[in-house]
């Protein structure tokens, strides 16, 4: 039983934009989001409980998920974990809490980015577009960083032939560092180049995602060798092995 308004509906055949799954229990806000997204050329579907979110995700196959953290039934953190377990689809959290602990918990559960309520429609759309940048036209390029091989066009990362599964965001982050291994990236520069933020001071995003990336690619995340911390400045790629 789905309580979502359009949860299992097929996308309207008339619209052909990217598909956004909105998971929010506030009906007015969900409807308003639908209106705004349609105005920006997206298709959208709404799911209003946490318990139905995963099935809605599986049936709708969205390109991006907007996820409220406070949901009836199952909270957004758990939903985030479930979706992340089976897909790297970008997830943007909608949160009413700006306390560090709430933001960090959300990011650690697998969200790529977050927007704090209340937000401006343009802000939200910018976040969505930043997360849906595609590399379809990327030239064939193979980079190495540490003992990893990055196939840019193929959008995959391998270690000694074995694939390493990264979310698109983690891939972008790794690629950004690997393209200029001589450069030390400050958190602000990474926020601009990977997340598309300008003038953003919230470096928690970078810290959390670097930790997540390290847990996937480093042989010992406690003493990283591929994504190296430059104390007081930021991060840089480790020297190729």
């Amino acid at each position, binding site marked *: 039983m789905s309580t979502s308004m359009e949860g299992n509906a097929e996308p309207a055949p008339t619209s052909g934009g990217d598909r956004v799954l909105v998971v929010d229990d506030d009906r007015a*806000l969900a409807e*308003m989001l639908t209106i705004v997204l349609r105005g920006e050329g997206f298709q959208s579907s709404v799911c209003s409980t946490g318990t139905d979110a995963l099935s809605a995700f599986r049936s709708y196959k969205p390109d991006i998920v907007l996820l409220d953290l406070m949901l009836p039934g199952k909270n957004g953190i758990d939903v985030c974990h479930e979706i992340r377990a089976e897909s790297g689809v970008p997830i943007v959290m909608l949160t009413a809490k700006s306390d560090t602990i709430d933001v960090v918990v959300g990011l650690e559960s697998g969200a790529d980015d977050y927007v704090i309520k209340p937000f401006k429609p343009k802000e939200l759309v910018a976040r969505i577009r930043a997360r849906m940048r595609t590399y379809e036209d990327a030239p064939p390029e193979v980079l190495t960083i540490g003992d990893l091989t990055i196939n840019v066009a193929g959008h995959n990362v391998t270690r000694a032939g074995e694939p390493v599964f990264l979310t698109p965001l983690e891939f972008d982050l790794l690629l950004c560092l690997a393209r200029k291994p001589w450069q030390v990236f400050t958190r602000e520069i990474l926020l601009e180049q990977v997340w598309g933020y300008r003038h953003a001071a919230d470096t928690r995003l970078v810290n959390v995602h670097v930790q997540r990336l390290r847990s996937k690619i480093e042989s010992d995340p406690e003493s990283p060798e591929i994504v190296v911390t430059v104390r007081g400045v930021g991060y840089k790629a480790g020297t190729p092995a």
Partner: protein
Amino acid sequence: MTPSARDVARDAGTASLRALRATTGLWRRSIQARVVLGTMVLCSIVIGLLGWALLRQVADGLVDARTSVAVAEAQAGFENSQEELDASLVSATNTQSQVLSALIDNITSRSGSLRSYEVVLQGPLSANGKVGPDAGTRSSAEIEAAAIPASLTDAIARNTRTHWTYTRLELTGPTDAPPAVVVGTQLRLPTGNERYALYYLFSMSDQQRTLDLVGRALLSAGVALTFLVAGVAWLVTRQVVTPVRLARRIAERLAAGRLEERMHVRGEDDLARLGQSFNQMAASLQKQIRQLEELSRLQHRFVSDVSHELRTPITTVRLAADVLHDARGTFDPLTARSAELLQTQLDRFEALLADLLEISRFDAGAARLEIDQVDLVGIAYRVIDYYSSLAARQGVSLTVVSTGGSAVVEADVRRIERIARNLVVNAIHYSGAERVEILIAHDSDSAALAVRDFGVGLQPGESQLVFNRFWRADPARERTRGGTGLGLAISAEDAALHGGWLQAWGEPGKGAQFRLTLPLRAGDEVSRSPLPLVPRTHVPLGAVKL
């Protein structure tokens, strides 16, 4: 490498100094040590005095007894000797010399095999009582002439009574001389008027031995008693000191936040009552703190709930207003204007809500720092970049004046940047100046960022008021310029949360300066600032135009 003598001496010196310091430290800190040491010192003084007096009495008693026995025995000996002399006949074959030698032998033999005295015969004495030039000395043993004091010799020469005194029994040869009593008198030979002095010397070595024994016994008893008393003092003070130490430890734990700690109370004595009072105090403290914590938690919870409950509908309103605002070209003029007003006032409402929630978070004690390495110079340039278009519209030039390069502090970058933005936007908006400078400096302990403008400045007294919530220098004028009136209040809270300062200076017509001072290391407190609050000169030095 072998340590030189000086090194060894210095090491020994430092070691003894350390030992001395440890001892004085123990003396200062431990009541128990003080009581035990004090008791030991007093006890040894008292026991010493008592022992000395006791020893004196024993010695006097022994000597008196020995002297009276000696004098009586000598007296009897003298009488016998005089009688023997009177009865002896001096002849050619029995010379005077032989008579005297026989006398000595007889006296000696009378004392038995265990001879209790020695005998000395001096003479003949001359007419004036002195020992004559042809006088000789006969004795039962090799006794030094010095063993008989001159005062006694004189006294005996003067009259015929018996005299006695103390001396030492000095024998020829390297033997130690025990104390002795010497008793003497005159003997008269029946032939002629020749007088001889006869001395009995009684050794007191037995008495000396007894006295030594008593002295040693007293000394060991005294030492043992001193340590015994010290031990008792240690036990007794421990009874008092242990609960006090326990109370100290419990108090320390309470201070460290373990509010459930209590003293173990037993009995009804003073210490038990101390424990009871202590526990009552702890319980009352715990209750108060719990209440405050609960209050703070409730307020934090309330703020969080309000925050969440308000934010969702406002987001919807915000989105709707934006849609209307974007579509206002298709509306009639009145509706279009309404959409614009809705949009701008919604901005103001959002800003106010955000600031109110932030202030509530400070009030509830829920604000937490996200410590990172923050370069104040980098922040200054970012803020200038952020406000470049606003500054250009207002005709204000923004410059960064940094002395000493990058100033990296351990701080919450979000909060520090918020403070810097706040100060800069205030300077652009309210100062009416065409130039705003951001000054940065640091020393070994702290770093400072100051925002200086050359505008209207502050009235006297206003430099304190600017940090008050909703304070406005000119209410009629400034409300039109936006701003929530909470910006500087939040900045001051942010600075305090870092253990830093946010201070203002201003003079009418000379501009104003807001100075943020932060400790380099998180958790430290600022004690001085590398930048002066009141600018040294009102003309900028070597300003780098951006």
